[in-house]
């Protein structure tokens, strides 16, 4: 796989950082994720951590004797025909102003009706570029620029778990109660990050997310179902 001209840098005692061109796009993301998934398959016990972001992969080893040349040739030998396994998730969101506390502000600032903001937000399919900042916090790309909106000047002290927000050109979901600067437009009853599951985070980098609008009644019903463990989040892997 010699699609991109990658930069390999030693990073600290035990790690190698691999960098792709500094552009945000899905081709690059998929290339990074393919590299990671092939590395994961090797089950190399010397690798203690392997993580990705928009344009980079960071591999940490348990000792000093790791060679850039080995990682390089591993990448170059990956067959480009390999396909990534990704999931497409449909996340229910209640966009009532009771949850979407900043919808009124956005209506004013964006000169769009609340209904229009909701229909624009829920029409798109978003790509998970990265997970970080907080456990299970998704960095989603692909938002319609009509609903870009700057973050709050002063972060809110407590954003509720499940809140769906807009920060600049990005949208995302707060996986836990936390302070946060994004404009809140709705809330999902789904637990995206649950330590009691075998795999605590349902979504992985590279997956697709779409939001569908639900009423407050549906929100309450799904909350109960989710708590009792009978709610099954919809996957749309066509």
């Amino acid at each position, binding site marked *: 796989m010699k699609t991109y001209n990658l930069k390999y*840098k*030693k*990073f*600290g*005692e035990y*790690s190698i*950082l691999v*960098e792709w061109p*500094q552009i*945000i796009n899905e081709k690059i993301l998929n290339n990074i994720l393919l590299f*990671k998934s092939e590395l994961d398959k090797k089950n190399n016990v010397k690798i*203690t*951590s*392997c*993580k*990705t*972001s*928009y*344009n*980079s*992969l*960071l591999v*940490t080893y348990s000792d000093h004797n790791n060679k850039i040349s080995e990682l390089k040739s591993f990448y170059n030998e990956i067959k480009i025909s390999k396909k990534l396994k990704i999931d497409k998730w449909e996340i229910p969101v209640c966009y009532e102003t009771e949850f979407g506390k900043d919808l009124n502000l956005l209506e004013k600032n964006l000169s769009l009706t609340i209904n229009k903001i909701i229909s624009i937000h829920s029409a798109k399919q978003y790509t998970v570029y*990265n*997970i*970080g*900042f*907080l*456990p*299970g*916090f998704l*960095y989603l790309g692909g938002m319609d620029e009509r609903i870009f909106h700057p973050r709050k000047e002063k972060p809110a002290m407590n954003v509720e778990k499940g809140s769906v927000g807009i920060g600049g050109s990005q949208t995302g979901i707060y*996986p*836990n109660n936390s302070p946060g600067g994004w404009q809140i437009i709705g809330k999902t009853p789904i637990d995206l*990050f649950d*330590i009691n599951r075998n795999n*605590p*985070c349902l979504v*992985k*980098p590279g997956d697709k997310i779409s939001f569908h609008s639900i009423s407050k009644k549906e929100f309450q019903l799904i909350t109960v179902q989710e708590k009792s463990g009978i709610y099954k989040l919809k996957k749309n892997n066509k």
Partner: protein
Amino acid sequence: MIEVIKPGLYSSIQDKGRFGFENYGVPISGSMDQFSSILSNKIISNNDNDAVMEITMIGPTLKFKTETTISITGADMSPLLNGENINLFKPHIIKNGDILSFGKLKCGLRCYLSVLNGFKTKKIMNSRSMYANITKEFRISKGDILNLESKINSNNTISLNDFEYENHFKGPFIEVYKGPEYEKLSIKQQTNLFNKKFTVSNKNNRMAYQMNEAIENNLDSIITSLVMQGTVQLTPSGEIIVLMRDNQTCGGYPRILQLNESSINKLSQKHMNDRIIFKLI
């Protein structure tokens, strides 16, 4: 088991860390000063990864309801067993009903308490390291009951090299590698990094240590990229932030330096206003 009579300023259970979930935004965590926590385990023949109590600045008061063997390493907080001074770096046999407390902080910032075979708090995602939103609590509180095995062992299997320990607490030198964005700094900025005296600010905790002094900065932010324990970030206003064990897994500030493992341990024992000099490896 142990009953927490007083929790101290900030005491938490830690092991070597929580590995394998970083790509979901979960930090590795673990003991801030891994050197001292592993040493504490070795003194009582525990495994390196057995869970210890990390104690910060003001020690807790703990009542043992089981017999066990303990050791304490790291910062000297004048530990007392039933009101009598006890030595650091030595195994101590504990009887049911004994009370461990701490006095004045003499050197360092964090000490490590090991019990035989480690604290048996609940493992979450393969680790007992406390971290907000992953474990139920991120530190211990008054009235907590901490489980441990009832067992004693008085064989001290390790001898200490005093010089190494002296070096661990004293001296301003923090060893670093160049970070991925180091070469983007001007010569003047690079020189400043190594010639300027930095001091630890009051913004220092398990997530990060920020320095009081800033350097001039005109670098742009980078596209959110990957950071690790010991990464030194330069903020838009020129502040120097060293990421510690509970670090966020990614960030958008230029990564100018990277601490080695022993310097992360060393920095963990520094206080507010302690002096730091970065030294290139």
